[in-house]
C-alpha cells in the first residue's frame, strides 16, 4: 500500500497572503489532483497533472497556481487568500485510467483571518 501526505494539516493565513500547500505520494502514480471541499458543495477540481511537469486546469483554477516538480509531489499555491475563507484542500492520486480508484490524503484545512 501507499500513502498521500499533505502538509501542513492546518494553515492560517492573512488576507492577500500567498499560501502554499504541499502533497507527496508514494504510490508511484502518474496522475495527481487538487480538490477544494466546501460544506454543501462537494469536491471541486482545482488542478490536475497526468504526469511529471504536466498541469491541467480544473473547474476552479482561478486564484490558484500548481506545480508538479516530480512524479511524487504536487503543490498548490493560493495566490491571494480571501478574507474569511475556510475550506479543506484534498490532494489525490491515481494510476490515471478511468476504471481505477482515486486515493486521497487527509487534507489541509485553510482559514483566512
Amino acid at each position: 500500500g501507499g500513502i498521500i501526505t499533505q502538509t501542513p494539516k492546518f494553515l492560517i493565513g492573512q488576507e492577500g497572503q500567498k499560501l502554499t500547500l504541499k502533497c507527496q505520494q508514494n504510490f508511484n502514480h502518474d496522475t495527481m489532483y487538487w480538490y477544494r471541499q466546501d460544506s454543501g458543495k462537494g469536491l471541486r477540481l482545482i488542478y490536475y497533472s497526468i504526469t511529471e511537469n504536466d498541469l491541467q486546469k480544473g473547474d476552479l483554477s482561478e486564484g490558484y497556481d500548481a506545480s508538479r516538480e516530480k512524479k511524487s509531489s504536487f503543490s498548490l499555491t493560493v495566490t491571494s487568500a480571501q478574507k474569511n475563507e475556510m475550506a479543506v484542500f484534498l490532494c489525490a492520486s491515481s494510476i490515471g485510467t478511468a476504471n481505477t480508484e482515486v486515493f486521497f490524503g487527509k487534507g489541509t484545512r485553510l482559514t483566512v483571518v
Partner: protein
Amino acid sequence: AQSVTQPDARVTVSEGASLQLRCKYSYSATPYLFWYVQYPRQGLQLLLKYYSGDPVVQGVNSFEAEFSKSNSSFHLQKASVHWSDSAVYFCALSSGGNYKPTFGKGTSLVVHP
C-alpha cells in the same frame, strides 16, 4: 458532459435500520461508477466500484450498490447500519479517456444509536 447527482444532502437513520443512499448520473455511455466514504477529518476512501457485469456489486463493510442503466442510477445500500457508519458518502463517475472523475456533492449520514 457527465454529471453526478446525490439528491439527499443529509440522511438520518437509527442503528440497525436499513439504508439507501441515492445516486443518479448523466453520461451517454456506460460509465465507471464508484462510492467513496469520508470519515471526520479524513480523506475519501473507496467503498466499492462498478465497471460491468452483475449490476449488484459488493463492497467493504457490508455495503453494496445496484447499477441501473434504465434509471441512470447507482444507489448504495446496507441492510443494517451501525453508528460507526456515520460519515459523508460520495458517488463518483469516470469515463474512458477522461482523467477527471466527477463527484457528487455528498450525502451526510447520521446514525442514531
